[in-house]
């Protein structure tokens, strides 16, 4: 374990939380984008 002071620990936790939110947002957006593009292509083909 690497020992750090409370302020560094809190700051790192906040940065990890921001990155987690960005990752969740990425999964949702990528899912919506892939679905939308597939539906558009299917509509064009049919």
């Amino acid at each position, binding site marked *: *374990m*690497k*020992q*750090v*002071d*409370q302020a*560094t*620990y809190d*700051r*790192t*936790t*906040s*940065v*990890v*939380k*921001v*990155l*987690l*939110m*960005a990752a969740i*947002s*990425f999964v*949702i*957006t*990528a899912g*919506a*984008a892939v679905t*939308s*593009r597939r*539906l*558009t*292509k299917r509509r*064009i083909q049919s």
Partner: protein
Amino acid sequence: MTTLTPAKPIVRAQALIAAMLHRTDELLDRAAEVIVRDVLKLEVVETPVAPAPAARASTEPTAHAGKSEYDDLITDYALQIGYHRDSNWAVPQMWCEMAAGGIGAGTFLVSALTGSVPGMVIGFALTAVVKGILLLFDLGRPERVWRVFSKPGESWIARGSWAFAAFCGAGGLATLGALTGMAGPLMTLLLTVATLASVVLLVYDGFFLNASAGVAGWRSSVLPFLFASNATATGAALTAALMANPPAGLMWTAAGLFAASAGLGYGYLSDLRHGLKSARVTEHELTKGAQAIDFQVGAGIVGAVVPAVAAALAASGAMPIAIVKAAALGAAGVYFSRKAVLKAGVHAPVL
């Protein structure tokens, strides 16, 4: 003898939504802690506690070596004798409602202008359904909701309510029309009303906070444009991400708007720095205090600078898929900008 009356369904639903949003926030906190502790292997080292100063004037800034004069200025006293954070609007319902409404209105606006049906559907759903549910369950007295529509000439809440109602009506019909291939003067009228309402919704949150006389940190004239620019940028990026072959112009627009929102974020901080003392406390909260990571990393770097670069890479053809990353990071930026600004709102002492 007193009898307990069962809570009304809307009150129970309000409590349920508030609890769910708080629990989600706690869950994210715990997940982040697990990553820091178990993946990054960080551990807090115990430091000896410095003796507290004997007495300190609660409203006067203190300047110590290596410390800002604004450190420790905010108190949690219920008597409001010191600088204290806002507890009315700085709640998860508010920043989730503002973020959903901003992303939705931005996406609908850009999608309606570019004729993207999936974008209109997602934009309408985010604004009318997600924002609508959060707004509905945030009402103190639902039976008096009609009164918010009065005095649109004086109140931004009234203007926002009219814009929201117009958006739900005209935007819903326009989305249905777009899905069924409707065209003609009626469709043009519906699209015009819905896009105008979405423009009002984009700036509404900022102007609504501007009207809060007690919080100097929200009274900056830059705030409505900061909120509108990052929401419209995200809307443009999301609209492009949903298209099979997005036009380069749309992605350049998103890149420009993301860059503008980074600049407006800096302008907002600069405006606060030259404002009243409670505005300077808010600026300190956003740059060095409790909201520094959310505002500077979440809304600034992750939510504006990186998406601007990603959208520019996609627009130039170097990495077309980067527009999906720009949209996702922009959405996170919209969330963090609302959350940080709301949580950094500080009231000056009453006395």
